[in-house]
């Protein structure tokens, strides 16, 4: 996975921002979402990203994995990332 051609990501103190520069839409991200997008920016695959997030954020109840899958689907649906 990777960010779409016109999507830019920047880390911020509160997490991060995604900026889709064609539509000029901005998405503010919390720290977990920013960590996920940062991993996508490295070109990592979905399962690898989820595994790293689970270990980084202590996924004791499985919530991180569920939310990561949903969030990746949302990013794809909005055209912000692509395979």
């Amino acid at each position: 996975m990777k960010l779409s051609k016109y999507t830019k990501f920047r880390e911020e103190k509160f997490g991060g921002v995604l900026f889709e520069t064609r539509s000029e839409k901005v998405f503010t991200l919390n720290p977990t979402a920013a960590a996920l997008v940062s991993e996508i920016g490295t070109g990592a695959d979905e399962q690898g990203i989820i595994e790293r997030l689970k270990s980084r954020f202590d996924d004791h109840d499985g919530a991180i994995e569920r939310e990561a899958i949903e969030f990746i689907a949302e990013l794809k649906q909005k055209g912000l990332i692509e395979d």
Partner: protein
Amino acid sequence: MSGEASAAVATGSGDLGAPLYVAWQLTNECNLACLHCIEESGPGKAFRDELGPPETFRIVDQLAAQGVPYLSLSGGEPMVHPFFFELVERVCTAGIELKIETNGHFLEPSTCERLQSLGVKAVQVSLDGASRETYNRMRVRGDFDRAVGGIRALAAAGVPIEINYSPTRFNAHEIGAAVDLAHELGAYSFYTGRTMYTGNAVKTWRAIAPKEEQYSSFFEVLHAKSAEYRGRMRVYFHELGLLEELRYRLRHPAALLIVLPNGLVKLINALPFVCGDLRRESLEEVWARFQRAWHDPRVAQFVEDLAADPRKTAALHRWVYLQ
């Protein structure tokens, strides 16, 4: 885990570490002398103190270092700037998405191929009319066929195209045909809104200002065209008046810096307030000043004074420095 579609909220609270968008008016010089120009640009109108190459490139380097994702270059006419292509190359190499806002008169096929190879995100061409009669009347010294030829050259080179349209008394009726023409020329976006009473428009207002009934029809057509082209071309238009827009911005400042040709930084184009100077200050310092400046009581006062006297926008070029 969440993403929210609003930078404005984050910006208003001062959370962002740097701007997300910088709109840089590279020069005030222009080959045209448009009746409605909000910048008072024209032939021989370059500022005496416009930034030179070292200062300009230093600013680009700072934008890149601070992670500013998006920059637009406008003017005046940015393509008459003496080191325009050097700057485009510097910006694109730095990984900043770049949009160029031009009148389209310098878009030769080889130029467009060069822009494409440098990776320019989009070129926005002003096309205020669907016929040479209206366009040439509004864009003094301009030529409709040359602008359209430039847009066709962009399309041939594979450069993404945006079209900008300023309505006046004598071209507002062509808006539907203009949207159709934009699509036929290969644009992916079309932008328009109300023409502002400032710059050259102050002198020409009686001849160019659309009547309210014209605006009603204008926006009615735009609503229909927006629906007609959904999924094929975005039709953006700002129906709100300037006062409503500024009141909104007071509550939600955009993460946008307006850089003037001499390096001064304005809060927003439609206000006279200057909050920094990139010739003398770092981007970081100017960004911090920008955040504070929106809370200066003179800014809110100016906006409210506009409610009583909308013609105060005539003075937007008499800059007010906020310390």
